[in-house]
């Protein structure tokens, strides 16, 4: 299973605290998914 499929169903939260499944983000377009080490 590649990274995209492993990430697909994982939920993350937007700054307002609402959950979204990562896979929804690349349903309609290509994304550059950047994991940052930390904020600040």
């Amino acid at each position, binding site marked *: 299973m590649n*990274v*995209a499929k492993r990430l697909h169903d994982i939920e993350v*939260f937007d*700054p307002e605290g609402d959950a979204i499944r990562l896979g929804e983000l690349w349903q309609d377009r*290509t994304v550059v*998914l950047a994991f*940052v*080490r930390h904020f600040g």
Partner: protein
Amino acid sequence: MRDALPEIRARGAELIIVGNGRPEHAIDFRESEGITCPLFVDPELHAYRAAGLRRGLLSSVSPRVIGRGIRAFVEGKRQGETQGDPWQQGGVFIITPGHTVPYAYVSQEAGDHPDPSEVLAALDRVRRKSAPAARRPKRSSP
């Protein structure tokens, strides 16, 4: 990578930032850095783990990293208070609607970032692949 946002969008893609703090950290980050792309947090590091990203003391404090930190300090770059897990490393992935991953970069240590030009070149290849006919020069009729 954030500096490349206009060029990423010009290629029909979007930059998505995932951080490992809490939602309120993302609000601070968005406001202080003027982030205009979608921003999410993964406080339990589920996505970081699924992406195979590195975590640990050794990857955060290698001699090279300390060297970079000293150089940055001398050059006047001071890191603000860390929010989130300080031992977690980052990475960058291009993911298409077909679940292909034409580009992946796993940071090996703090300060190890992908070259934005490589990311943009990979996006160009995705575009060429998805619309080959549009890019092919028209054959002139005899």
